């Protein structure tokens, strides 16, 4: 294990007192994050806790003993060189790996407040995917109308009422800062949108079903700088409504949008800390080397 996380449940005295004082929601446990002797103990309110997660493609162990808390209503960035397992890790959260044969999880990702182990054997991956949204690297709208793209998740949940659908679609499109651009052409094909608009449509599609965690897998790597800026701005706004986990290759992006950053290398977690700390004063040599561009 790379680092030592001290998990404190409501049962353990001090943390419980803390959380009841500061947070109105006692359901999410407070997790102490690692500190060195120069800093105060800080705690984050965890939406999910990854504990000793291992992931295997057949015999290949792609993720090694990952332990990391995911802060509630905050943005957590996953950085690291290509092939370090960031995307693999992200895809564990919505069980995308279950679509491939011969994959296996060990350990746990506990989703709070209901203590559901996302990678548990008895947990239906479809339920997990209905609760945890994902935005992919390349914008992948369905070749249907803009409206139908956003409404699809609701339709899967059995929503048939036209008024409800229209309201929720509008809400999601507003949430993704796309409403004003498309409100007059909701019935047009989504494929007529620009790349940046498509990606925001995909965000709206995920938002429409009010996910508990929203996963972003390098959401701007196929976009130009202006579209990228809009997506980044959107992610900073989304932080108030939803827990965000974002994989990015772009250091500046991680620094700009995230509150916490995890640096991964060769399937292992090297360092996890507040983003400002990681980018200004990382405690591991490897992190510093990667951030300053010495490798990766």
């Amino acid at each position: 294990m790379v680092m030592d996380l001290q998990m404190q449940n409501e049962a353990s005295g001090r943390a419980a007192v803390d959380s009841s004082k500061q947070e109105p929601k006692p359901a999410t446990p407070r997790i102490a994050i690692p500190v060195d002797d120069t800093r105060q103990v800080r705690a984050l309110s965890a939406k999910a806790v990854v504990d000793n997660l291992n992931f295997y493609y057949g015999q290949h162990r792609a993720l090694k003993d990952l332990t990391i808390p995911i802060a509630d209503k905050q943005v957590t960035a996953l950085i690291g060189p290509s092939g370090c397992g960031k995307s693999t890790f992200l895809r564990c959260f919505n069980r995308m790996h279950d679509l491939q044969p011969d994959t296996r999880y060990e350990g746990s990702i506990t989703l709070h407040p209901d203590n559901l182990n996302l990678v548990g054997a008895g947990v239906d991956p479809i339920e997990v995917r209905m609760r945890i949204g994902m935005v992919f690297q390349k914008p992948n709208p369905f070749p249907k109308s803009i409206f139908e793209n956003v409404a699809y998740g609701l339709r899967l949940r059995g929503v048939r009422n036209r008024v409800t659908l229209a309201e929720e679609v509008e809400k999601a499109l507003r949430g993704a800062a796309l409403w004003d651009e498309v409100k007059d052409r909701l019935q047009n094909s989504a494929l007529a949108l620009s790349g940046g608009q498509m990606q925001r449509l995909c965000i709206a599609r995920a938002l429409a079903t009010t996910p508990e965690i929203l996963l972003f897998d390098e959401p701007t790597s196929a976009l130009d700088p202006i579209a990228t800026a809009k997506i980044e701005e959107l992610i900073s706004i989304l932080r108030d409504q939803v827990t965000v986990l974002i994989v990015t290759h772009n250091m500046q992006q991680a620094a700009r949008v995230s509150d916490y950053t995890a640096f991964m290398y060769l399937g292992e977690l090297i360092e996890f800390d507040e983003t400002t700390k990681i980018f200004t004063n990382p405690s591991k040599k490897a992190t510093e080397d990667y951030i300053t561009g010495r490798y990766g």
Partner: protein
Amino acid sequence: MRAANIASYNNASALRAGLSRRKMFDQIFVIVGLTVMLMCLIVLAILFADLVRDGAPRFGWDFFTNFASRHAERAGILAAWVGTSLVMLVTAVCAVPVGVAAAIYLEEYAPKNWFTAIIEINVTNLAGVPSIVYGLLALGLFVYQFDLGQSIAAAGLTLALLILPIVIVATREAIRSVPNSIREAAYGLGATRWEVTKDHVLPYSTGGVLTGMILGLSRAIGETAPIITIGALSFIAFLPQSPITSEFPFISFKWLHDPFTVMPIQMFNWVSRPDQAFQANAAAAGAILLAMTLLMNGFAIWIRYRFRKKINW
């Protein structure tokens, strides 16, 4: 000086000489390809023109509304084209759902193991089985075992078996062309496999599926051997019972059990007669059959074009 340390193969005149030689191969390929393609088209055009010329005196309303006759000038293709249409209907209704379902299973559901590998190889091989073999199988199975007799149902099922591999292969091709990112998007929202298939994969591959269906039917429409094997009549002077009746429930399936003939058999029958006058009938029927096939293929191309225009990855 730049010229001093530049390799001999890399100076401007050498580059130009090499390039024009390389482009020559490009041109040669264009000429060869165009010639071969034109030759195929010309042969088809000559064949069609020849049939039309020979059959010209027979074209007319009567030719379509008359039954076969001992008198060449009174003989028509009524029984044949009605038979062909009904057999094609049965073939399409049987082959398409089964073929599409099989393709969906193989592409979206089946685990990749030795068992599915064997199935895949067999499906591809089935496309190459001579049609007469299907005829023999159908004679034993449909005509005698299932006691369907020499009926439209037996012929439709036989041809359905024959084109099943074509439908499966074309549908799989179409399904495979749906990008994986679309499947991931739908799965990511919590869709089940069936929902992904029904809401996305199938609708987006409809063009390809329909094209495969029509290519299969174009093959089936010209098949003679298996139909002869199961014992289609070659001289027939009545129509199958009408599928629409005047009494409740207005739809009848009795025609499925009626004897029939089809266009290629009618042609074969006329060609084999010694009387020269019947050769014109055969030519006219041939031209019509060819026109039917071309029409179906044209329809397939139109469908594919329409769907491609709508969906553009």
